């Protein structure tokens, strides 16, 4: 949309285009600045570290969710996949001997769920909302049955290190999230698959006309989302240190909200990884600020709901003009 009218006619056009593309990053910077002024401890090393640790699993999920939304879909199964991956960490052994097995199994299940979602959406034309809702419910039931209600057992130390440890001062989970974001940012914005995804999501008919196989493109988006959700579940299990059957509850909606705040259009085909990540960071920063300012926790929920509507309204306005 902005690409079409950016020939350097006027300065104001340039400013507008910068705002349109990077407005969310600027908003994040502004939020951090204002937060720091309101409550100096907000930008203290301890609190920043805390926020980054909370942010890491959400970042992983948001990257996958963004791929799915770009394909005109939605993935409501990510929370269920996260919980399943988290439960896997406790199923085998309390030491690190089964780590490889756990990671492989979690990723396979995550990608398998993504594959089922993708097949339902592409081959059976099921709406993404229902397809992913149904797989989420089924997976939840299987998980509950598998663990007879409450998982027991300990998380191997390896995952605790991943969830809370540091590497050169930076939390390891954050490093993982950043690496994943960069890799998938490159896939989306620099590689052929990303271009196909943006075309198919933006205009499926056009995609077909230029010889893109839309089904395969969409399918991969769901597989990626499932795999990254599994990774996020493993990270979150390590961060929390304990696992129950509802690890990751709320991440399905939070990840959609983060992507929408970051300017990823629910109508598909438009959005960036950087925007979605900024959206996730805004979400975490707002929550953190509400608590730091000393407001009751209910205000977190109320502000979250308001931000969802405001952000969506902000982007709708801009596409109309």
């Amino acid at each position, binding site marked *: 949309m902005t690409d079409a009218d950016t020939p350097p006619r006027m300065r104001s056009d340039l400013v507008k285009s910068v705002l349109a593309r990077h407005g969310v990053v600027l908003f994040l910077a502004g939020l951090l600045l204002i937060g720091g002024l309101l409550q100096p401890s907000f930008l203290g090393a301890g609190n920043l570290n805390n926020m980054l640790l909370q942010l890491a699993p959400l970042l992983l999920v948001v990257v996958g969710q963004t791929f799915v939304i770009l394909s005109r879909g939605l993935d409501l199964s990510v929370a269920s996949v996260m919980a399943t991956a988290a439960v896997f960490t406790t199923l085998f052994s309390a030491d690190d001997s089964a780590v490889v097995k756990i990671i492989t199994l979690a990723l396979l299940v995550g990608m398998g769920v993504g594959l089922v979602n993708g097949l339902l959406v592409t081959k059976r034309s099921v709406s993404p909302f229902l397809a992913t809702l149904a797989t989420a419910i089924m997976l939840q*039931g299987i998980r509950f049955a598998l663990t007879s209600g409450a998982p027991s057992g300990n998380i191997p130390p390896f995952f605790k290190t991943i969830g809370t440890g540091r590497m050169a001062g930076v939390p390891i989970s954050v490093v993982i999230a950043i690496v994943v974001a960069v890799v998938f940012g490159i896939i989306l914005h620099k590689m052929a698959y990303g271009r196909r995804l943006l075309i198919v999501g933006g205009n499926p008919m056009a995609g077909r006309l230029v010889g893109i196989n839309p089904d395969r493109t969409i399918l991969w988006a769901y597989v990626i989302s499932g795999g990254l959700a599994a990774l996020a579940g493993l990270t979150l299990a390590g961060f929390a240190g304990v696992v129950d059957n509802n690890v990751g509850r709320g991440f399905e909606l939070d990840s959609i909200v983060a992507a929408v705040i970051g300017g990823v259009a629910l109508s598909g085909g438009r959005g960036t990884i950087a925007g979605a990540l900024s959206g996730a960071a805004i979400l975490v920063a707002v929550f953190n600020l509400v608590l730091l300012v000393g407001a009751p926790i209910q205000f977190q929920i109320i502000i979250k709901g308001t931000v969802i509507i405001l952000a969506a309204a902000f982007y709708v306005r801009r596409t109309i003009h």
Partner: protein
Amino acid sequence: MTSLDPPHQTPPQTPRQNTRLKQAFGRNAPLLVVIVLIIAMVIAGALMTDRFLTLRNFTNIVEQSTGLGLVSLGQTFAVLTAGIDLSVGSVMSLASTLASGLIDKDVAQAAWVIPMVLLLCALIGATNGLLIHQLGIHPLIVTLGTGTVLQGLTLLYALSPVGGMPRALEFVAYETVLGVPIGAAIMMLLFLAAAVFLGHTRAGRDIYAFGDDAEAARLVGINRARVLLTVYGFSGLMAGIAGVYLAIRFGVGQPYLGVNYTLSSITPVVVGGTMLSGGRGGVLGTLLGVFLVGVLNNLLNFLQVSTHFQLVAQGAIIIAAVSIYVDTRRSRT
């Protein structure tokens, strides 16, 4: 996205004698599928245990289905317009908590509190409709946002069950007429009224037309704002009634009452053949869908499988239903 597809009312078929029959069957296929499934489950249940095919168990199933039925009825309206209402769970929580807290077991209070709470819920729903109309945002995002805000407000009012509903109202949940609890009878009457409204009034047909093709509806002069306000207002009202009903049944309102109902309310709608892409389906299918879920859960209880498998079964039903009723008109909402 939609302009390339032919309108579904005029399938380009070669005229044959049984075409009309086929069309009638095609339209009602979801209803038949659900009825057959319910019958199959009833037979299975009857073969399994003597206690299944009893009036007592029938009453039980109907009673368990009432709350879900009420919410799903409102949800059907939203889905018919190609929308969705994700705020219903929070509206239920709000209604039950507020009613229970304000009434505090005093029947005299109930006389004005309940109408006021229901009015509030209808207004909340209408606000959803207004936001969707004014802001032009997808209903999913709007109602997710308002639902989140409402859950926060409910928790601000009470963090745990508060007050209580008067004993004098319990007859609504537990008294039965011909084996049907009064609450369930009211629910079914509401379904009937909604079916008449949708099928036989101008405003009802406008809802279908709008859901089928919003642009065409605009061109023939259907008032978009009125449709959205009606539909989401009704959905809010139904969620409110469900919340108050459950508060009466449990004796007290709970701030997390509706959490599981938001997504559950969609299952009977889609199982009953209403397409998420809008314009097709109806409330009768939803009612059957509600009973299907009710009978299934009841059956699984008798089987004494863990309640966790109820979730698996529910997921399987959704997948089966939506895979059978493939929407040939449009795909991917």
